[in-house]
């Protein structure tokens, strides 16, 4: 098991390293940065000075690369052009918000998706399955941000059931009691989490339905029935037990999806997370911020994949035992 994990860990680190290096190269290749002579975009002298110091511009490229890596390891992600503050600081504020949103969306995604997929597989090809199949096909094809806008319009503007943005109520929050604060946060979280969660759940349900049907077609399901197991037991123990293995891999895939979705969803719902930070940074061409966000996203995706691998190793006896 350890050898296998070490390999996965190495792959994760390689992924992050690749993004780091790519970032470095892109910054050097891009116009409008102080690296190219004759840059079209006149940069703030203070910014240029900061960059010179940070990248050691007078030295040869490999040396610059080394010092760039060293600064990264120390957590120095540069200074935001637009906000005039260290990027790391801004990110530290934003990341928890993104994690809350992504976590809530992940719960909706997996719980709803899993339940729908199992239910559909149990009712395969009957009316309920067909209806849900079309619904999940539609919702998995919808642009996340557009669904967010529709929910915003219907539940925020027209029905006024939910607030139209933000993490907390700007006026009332500070005066609320402890429980009220939690409720207010959840109330604000509902629409953005639902937006991301529903689109994810639609995809998860489609995947899970197929996995369940595949598992239900296996010989060992027949064996279980021959033992007198109830349909419920066959479905939830034997079929699901096998169909959960590919599902765990899906967990690794859900992470990039959620982060990507967060960029757009956060923008729409004025959710002060990493995604909105990145989107704003793009509008202001604040590239230290954008590149830092990309790095953080890469680290998160790598971590998500690694976590999925760990779960898979714990769940699949073929991996667990073979590599012991």
């Amino acid at each position: 098991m350890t050898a296998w994990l070490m390999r996965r860990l190495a792959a994760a680190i390689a992924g992050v390293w690749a993004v780091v290096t790519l970032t470095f190269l892109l910054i050097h290749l891009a116009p409008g940065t102080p690296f190219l002579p004759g840059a079209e975009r006149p940069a703030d002298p203070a910014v240029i000075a900061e960059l010179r110091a940070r990248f050691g511009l007078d030295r040869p490229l490999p040396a610059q690369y080394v010092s760039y890596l060293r600064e990264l390891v120390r957590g120095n992600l540069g200074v935001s052009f637009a906000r005039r503050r260290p990027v790391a600081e801004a990110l530290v504020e934003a990341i928890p918000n993104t994690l809350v949103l992504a976590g809530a969306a992940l719960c909706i995604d997996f719980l709803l998706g899993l339940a729908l997929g199992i239910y559909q597989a149990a009712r395969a090809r009957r009316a309920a399955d067909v209806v849900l199949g079309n619904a999940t096909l539609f919702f998995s094809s919808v642009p996340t941000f557009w669904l967010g806008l529709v929910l915003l319009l219907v539940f925020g503007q027209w029905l006024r059931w939910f607030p139209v943005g933000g993490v907390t109520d700007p006026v009332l929050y500070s005066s609320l009691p402890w429980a009220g604060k939690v409720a207010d946060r959840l109330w604000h979280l509902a629409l953005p989490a639902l937006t991301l969660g529903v689109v994810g759940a639609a995809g998860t349900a489609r995947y899970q339905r197929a996995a369940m049907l595949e598992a239900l077609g296996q010989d060992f399901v027949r064996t279980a029935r021959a033992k007198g197991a109830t349909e419920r037991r066959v479905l939830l123990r034997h079929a699901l037990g096998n169909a959960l293995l590919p599902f765990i891999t899906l967990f690794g895939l859900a992470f990039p999806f959620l982060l990507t979705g967060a960029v757009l969803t956060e923008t729409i719902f004025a959710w002060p997370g990493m995604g909105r930070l990145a989107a704003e940074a793009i509008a202001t061409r604040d590239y230290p911020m954008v590149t830092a966000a990309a790095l953080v996203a890469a680290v998160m995706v790598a971590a998500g994949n690694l976590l999925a691998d760990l779960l898979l190793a714990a769940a699949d006896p073929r991996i667990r035992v073979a590599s012991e």
Partner: protein
Amino acid sequence: MTPRTWLALLAALTVAIAAVALLRRRAARTPAGREFFRHPPAAPGLAVLGFFAIVAIGARLVAPYHPAAQLDIVGLQNQAPSWAHPLGTDTFSRDTWSRLVFGARISLAVGALAMLVAVTVGSIVGAMAGYFRRWVDAVLMRTVDVGLAIPRLFLLLMIAALWEGLPLPVLVLLIGLTGWFGTSRLVRAEVLSVRERDFVAAARALGAGPARVIFRHVLPNAAAPIIVSAALGIGNVLLLEAGLSFLGIGVQPPLPSWGNMIGDGWRQLAVAPWATLFPGLAIAVVVMALNAVGDALRDALDPRREVT
């Protein structure tokens, strides 16, 4: 909308449906064709794709106005749908339907071309990895692992932030070049199984070089997974383009794309929801059609798959 544009629209619809009906009749002759149309969503999906393709090509005939024309910035701002403007007008008094039609051109073209790039690169890389194996395979597949681990949107955001106002062809190329990883894995797996078959060995025995063997013998036999992944991939590209354009770093105005239409419209969501809703619906419907067709293709082209 003039009677002429309504007529053109009707014609587009008729042609799309008739074409699918015709295709269905011809497909009934082959097992794969029957299998394809046995999926209930397959035929409507094809019709939707055909319809949008026709509309995109004949945009000039179906759209009453120029997509960027500001008709009457005072009198025709944020108009609700009507006979004159079936999908309403946006905050710049532009006709949403006309923009949607011309946007179809851009969005579908970006989707198709980017996917073409992705499929080409993915097929070649996958074929090389599967054909040469050993270190070529190892290097290429590790690259693919890394590529799959990079959050694509963030990478594109970074590039877009560093290069201001990417020209459309570069955007297409970038989307394509960041989207081939999955395809190459599929192709590699297929090539690994194809390369052991007799006709490949025979071709090699006759002295065919690797390029010839790959292009003439191996890739055509790996066509099925390539086609399926392309169909499913275009949908992803459409969504990605929409997201980028929504953020203002994809297709640049005045060119209309479905994504930047939403990006232009959403701040007036409360006043003119139609300017946001319709392009999003168009994306959803087309992506849905692509997914449906992709699913049906996968079943039709895969002989091993059981009938479900």
